[in-house]
């Protein structure tokens, strides 16, 4: 992409093609011979990491679309079926879901890198603006993708975000109706979001091509911020940049794999494991972490239209950056003031992200307004001002000089910045988390579970006992509709044989039909059948339960969570603690008090539970000592029942958990080996350049 190449194949067949379509020459000049500044640091590998992530997302996305059903009644179920039944479906879904977060994580680093080293300045303005367009497209794609699983957060996130457009004067309502294709978010909305979610990544890929083209015309910026002048300033893209990028990607994969295999739900919201319900809004609508800073700006401004304008303005202002910052020196390395303000700006952004996850009340609102002001002030006041008053330090004469000056210097900043960023990112995530389930309730005590941690395995005995408790107690009100009888005999499950599962299934009566006479009939269950639900529909369930709807238990251990608070959520990332759900469910089952504490006003038909948010629960105390007989001599106590049934329900919520952790171990061993090898290969290759 940097002009005609002098590349000439020698093979006659290739020569024949090359004369007619010089594609090899194009590839050669773009990705092999392309001269790249020799002083690039690892922040520059994020371009390659992003390209890699785009490929990963498109690949896994296309595959997931082969199994997904974009219909309001089936979307949630089809996602569960992908995770449970499709070969490696759980893996593909985890990759795609956490891949979105990784994509944004990488793009933020890429953008901050551009900001710090002045990569948007002349002659790279168009390159930068194309980047802003890609970012906007990514936000749209990510948002629509998040709607597709059709959980509670999907549905309400879609409602809130589409309603942003209702702020438009005069046409607002019509625009929103147009977006929805109905009078509310519903099936037409889901269908079009699916269509666009499939389309936009290819649009992104197209703009990425332009982005790279513009990059190859202007040449890469570099930490010194001086243009490459002679051949001594550059090295050929292959093998130097390629090897370095591959090493960078491989390190990034280690980080990525941690989420895929060990923390798949760390970045998600428990609420999204509850199917979309247009009648109930979750207590806190929190967008995905990567939108939080802009969400905070939206909420800081007390006027609807102004808030929306400020939010979009906060993104669009980036496009004007090349003209807002008119300083001649590119790299902040040589701009003592700009450098400090850059880091302050980073803190402001992270602060906004934190606030975006907090409830919009009290001090949070005030701080939110201050930070919003600072965000805009950085672009509109500070950068133009700095360009005038700052006295930059002298920049090196050439890239080669910069490299020579640095030989033997300190490579430390990268490491410390990475640590700082990780802590800050964690803070942000933790903020997101603390907003969930923050209603005044007692924290459940953390239990010991055999399935926790990287080597965790289910306890077959506990699962079999738990199944018994479910069948004899819970099943009278709660369904388990995503679990099939055949699952009981599958690897990683409660360890029954196929014959046992079959016998278990045949004890159930399953509705089937219609038969040749057109009538529905009952027959004994088969392994392929799912656990029948106790009520035919929600209305019947409510009618039989005093107005309360006993939730389906298939996903209950993933759909419930509680705030771990600071700094536990940070530690949790490293210890892989993710058993909030099971801890809560166990605690809830044991948390009944016969007498509510003095002063607590218990509504009619409710029961006091220490761990239930708000304490007044409609479900009567379900378990009592001796209620279920165990054959294996385990104590017949409420505590034991509660733990066993939770153990079973954890498996019900994630039947492939053992497979996930086992594969994770193999992948990590492999990735560490690959990363080490790539590191030394890269070192060997670069030895020639020094």
């Amino acid at each position, binding site marked *: 992409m940097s002009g005609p190449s*002098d590349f000439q194949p020698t093979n006659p067949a290739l020569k024949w093609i090359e004369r007619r379509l010089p594609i090899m020459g194009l590839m050669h000049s773009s990705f092999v011979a392309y001269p790249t500044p020799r002083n690039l640091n690892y922040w520059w590998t994020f371009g390659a990491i992003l390209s890699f992530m785009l490929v990963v997302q498109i690949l896994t996305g296309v595959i997931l679309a082969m199994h997904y059903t974009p219909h309001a009644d089936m979307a949630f179920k089809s996602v569960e079926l992908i995770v449970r039944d499709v*070969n490696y479906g759980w*893996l593909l879904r985890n990759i795609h879901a956490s891949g979105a977060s990784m994509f944004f994580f990488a793009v933020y680093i890429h953008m901050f890198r551009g900001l710090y080293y002045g990569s948007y300045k002349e002659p790279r303005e168009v390159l930068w603006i194309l980047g802003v367009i890609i970012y906007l497209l990514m936000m749209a794609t990510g948002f629509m993708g998040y709607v597709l699983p059709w959980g509670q957060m999907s549905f309400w996130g879609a409602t809130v975000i589409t309603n942003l457009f209702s702020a438009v004067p005069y046409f607002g309502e019509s625009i929103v109706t147009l977006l929805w294709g109905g009078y509310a978010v519903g099936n037409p909305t889901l269908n079009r979001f699916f269509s666009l979610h499939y389309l936009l990544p290819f649009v992104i890929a197209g703009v990425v091509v332009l982005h790279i083209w513009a990059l190859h015309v202007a040449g890469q910026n570099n930490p010194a911020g001086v243009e490459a002048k002679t051949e001594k300033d550059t090295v050929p893209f292959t093998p130097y940049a390629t090897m370095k990028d591959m090493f960078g990607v491989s390190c990034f994969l280690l980080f990525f794999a941690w989420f895929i295999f060990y923390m798949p739900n760390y970045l998600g919201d428990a609420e999204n494991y509850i199917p979309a319900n247009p009648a109930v809004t979750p207590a806190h609508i929190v967008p995905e972490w990567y939108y939080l800073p802009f969400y905070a700006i939206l909420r800081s401004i007390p006027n609807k239209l102004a808030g929306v304008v400020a939010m979009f303005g906060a993104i669009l202002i980036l496009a004007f950056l090349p003209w807002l910052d008119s300083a001649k020196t590119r790299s902040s390395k040589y701009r003592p003031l700009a450098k400090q303000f850059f880091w302050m700006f980073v803190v402001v952004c992270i602060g906004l992200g934190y606030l975006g996850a907090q409830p919009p009340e009290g001090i949070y609102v005030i701080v939110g307004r201050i930070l919003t002001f600072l965000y805009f002030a950085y672009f509109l006041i500070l950068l133009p001002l700095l360009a005038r008053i700052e006295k930059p330090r002298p920049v090196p004469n050439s890239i080669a000089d910069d490299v020579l000056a640095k030989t033997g210097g300190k490579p430390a900043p990268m490491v410390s910045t990475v640590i700082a960023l990780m802590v800050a990112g964690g803070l942000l995530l933790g903020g997101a988390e603390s907003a969930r389930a923050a209603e005044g309730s007692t924290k459940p005590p953390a239990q010991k579970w055999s399935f926790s941690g990287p080597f965790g395995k289910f306890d077959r005995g506990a699962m079999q006992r738990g199944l018994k408790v479910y069948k004899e107690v819970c099943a009278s009100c709660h369904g388990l509709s995503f679990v099939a009888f055949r699952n009981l005999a599958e690897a990683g499950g409660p360890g029954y044989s196929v014959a046992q599962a079959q016998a278990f299934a045949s004890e159930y009566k399953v509705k089937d039909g219609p038969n040749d006479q057109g009538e529905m009939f009952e027959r004994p269950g088969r392994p392929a059948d799912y656990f029948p639900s106790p009520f035919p529909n929600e209305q019947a369930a409510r009618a039989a339960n005093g107005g309360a709807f006993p939730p389906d238990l298939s996903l209950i251990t993933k759909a419930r969570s509680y705030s771990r608070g600071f700094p536990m959520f940070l530690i949790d990332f490293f210890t892989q603690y993710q058993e909030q759900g099971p801890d809560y469910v166990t605690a809830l089952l044991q948390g009944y008090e016969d007498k509510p504490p003095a002063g607590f006003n218990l509504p009619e038909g409710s029961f006091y539970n220490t761990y239930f948010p708000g304490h007044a629960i409609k479900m009567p105390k379900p378990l009592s000592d001796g209620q279920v007989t165990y054959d294996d001599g385990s104590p017949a106590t409420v505590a034991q029942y509660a733990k066993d049934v939770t153990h079973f329900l954890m498996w019900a919520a994630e039947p492939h958990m053992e497979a996930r952790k086992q594969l994770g171990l193999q992948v990590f061993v492999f990735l560490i080996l*690959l990363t080490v090898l790539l590191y030394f290969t890269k070192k*060997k290759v670069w030895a020639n350049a020094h």
Partner: protein
Amino acid sequence: MRSHGKGANRTILDCLFRRNGGRKSGFSAAAGAAGAGSLLRGARLRGSGAVPLAADKKGLEIVTTASSADHPTRRDFLYVATGAVASVGAAATVWPLVSQMNPDASTVAAGAPIEVDLTPIAEGQDIKVFWRGKPIYISHRTKKQIEEARAVSVSSLPDPQSDEARVKPGHDQWLVVVGICTHLGCIPIAHEGQYDGFFCPCHGSVYDTSGRIRQGPAPTNLAVPPYTFVSDTKIQIG
């Protein structure tokens, strides 16, 4: 490394795949011509096991002779090991991406055996049931049909098979076949065609009362699915 000295256009990969006197086979020449075309190189690496390693090795010898600083064998080993590990990783990654296209667990479970009650099928009639998404014909054959099927000389058939081999002993009147034409998958119509068996309207294959191909483009007889008689009036398919 000498490629670097000569300018930005020449790179390590140029060195890696440069032809030298010893090997002028088409393959290595193609690789050499592709030069640093990394796409081609990737395809080659995935396509074959041993050759790329040999090529790498050969290429690297050129590299190492060009740069005197390094111990050649250690360097060879490093590059080859990295390439090999990366290829293993790439191959392992492809596995789940392809495996997901196979039938999922619920589809497999739904393909479990089914039971069919034969009592409602009168002599001379047939029914169609579905098993694993395929139509299965169950025909209650008349005496005449059975005799027709057995009268023909087996060796004269395009796909020689006796009628006895296509039904269960003692249940000669019951013909159970997969109702999918063995030509290109259309569904033949029962009780049609000049052999009183099945006739496929798509391209005119004609099957007899035993479901054997007698005429037309279909290469083989209609398949007999796995089934057993649970009782005299009930079969289990699958």
